Structure formats: C-alpha cells, structure tokens
C-alpha cells in the first residue's frame, strides 16, 4: 500500500505499469486518473492547497479502510498539490485484487472519499481572476453509498 502526496508531476501510465508489475497474484488492476479540466474562458492554471500531515493521515486511513472492506492485494494513491496546468494528472488511485469486483469497488470508494474527506482545496485561475472550486452536494451525498 502506498500514499504519495507530491508537488512533482507524475506519469499515470508509468505508475500503472509499475503498480501492475509489483502486484503478483492479482488478477485485476483498476486505476483512475483525475486530470485538470479546462474551463470556459480558458484555465491558466489550477492551484491546489492541502493540509500537510492531515492529508497523509486522512488518505492512509481511507486506504486502510478499503483494505479492511475489500480483498485487495495492493492499493496506491498519488495526489498532487501546487500549480497544475490544464491536462495535467492531478491524482491517481490504483487497486489490485484477485478478482475485478473488489478492485472496482475499492477504487470507487477511495475516489468518493478522496473528493470530500481528503484536505485539498482547488483554485482555478483564469483571465478573469481566481476562484476557489466549491464542493458539490452530490459529492457529499455519494458517501452514503458506502
């Protein structure tokens, strides 16, 4: 299991290849990559702030919960902070399991909780100025699925 909170860019393909190579016994690997979306009017960049210490702690707790609930052989969460450009990968979740159902469910669970329980805040900077991205009610509601 690994949790990496980093400012540096990462290559989702290379990370997935490495994760898969290190997952012997897994018949299923599921991954999700979140990418900086462009906005109307053009996004200059996205600034991601986080709470060092709590971020690692909160995500590690989520990964532990996923491991307790599903039959996983491995799990990986990478999340960036700092300044990102449109098209940059923001974060990535990968799960490995003997069978796909557990890998899909655990990845879905991790994504839902990362959205509204990992202490990150996104600010979009456009030609018109800068705005904090508001949390969506739907993201909070999604937690009830679990």
């Amino acid at each position, binding site marked *: 299991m690994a949790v990496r909170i980093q400012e540096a860019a990462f290559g989702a393909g290379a990370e997935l290849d490495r994760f898969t190579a290190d997952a012997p016994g897994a018949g299923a690997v599921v991954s999700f990559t979140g990418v900086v979306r462009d906005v109307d009017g053009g996004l200059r960049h996205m600034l991601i702030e986080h709470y060092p210490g709590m971020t690692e702690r*909160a995500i590690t707790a989520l990964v532990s919960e996923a491991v307790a609930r599903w039959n996983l052989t491995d799990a990986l969460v990478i*999340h960036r902070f700092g300044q990102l450009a449109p098209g940059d990968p923001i974060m990535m979740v990968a799960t490995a399991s003997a069978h796909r159902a557990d890998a899909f469910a655990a990845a879905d669970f991790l994504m839902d909780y990362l959205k509204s329980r990992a202490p990150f805040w996104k600010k979009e900077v456009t030609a018109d100025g800068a705005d904090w991205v508001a949390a969506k009610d739907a993201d909070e509601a999604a937690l009830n699925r679990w």
Partner: protein
Amino acid sequence: MDILYFAWVRERIGLPRETIQTEAATVADLVAELCAREDRYAVAFADITALRVALDQELTDFDAPLAGVREVAFFPPMTGG
C-alpha cells in the same frame, strides 16, 4: 494552541496560522472569541455551516471540546480528487 486556516478562510483572515492563548471550551467558543477580536475573523466565520474544522488533524464538528487539543484547523469543504 496553534490555529491553521486554509483556502478562502486563510485569505479572509490574512494568515495561514497563528498561536493563541485561549480558555475556550469548545470550537464554537473559540470561533466566538476570534470573531470578537477583529472584523476579518467575523467575515471568515460569518457562516460556519460553510466551514469544516479539524482538531489535531481529525475532522470533527463545532461542538467538540478543546481540552488537550494542540492544533485546530478551519477550512471550507474539501475538494480533493
């Protein structure tokens, strides 16, 4: 006690962290104490339903007691992922 502010809470208050002496019993008491100090706090805490609070890096609510707490953090709802 260390108090940390993130995102627009940090911007409205004008600093990322500060250390204060307080006798506040709960988070809500601390918020009331800060709001009484200066307008910028009152502006940031105008609607606490729009805010979240963590005590020693664990998410909690505004009724939580502060006894033994070293670090309080205030921030808007999180937008990870």
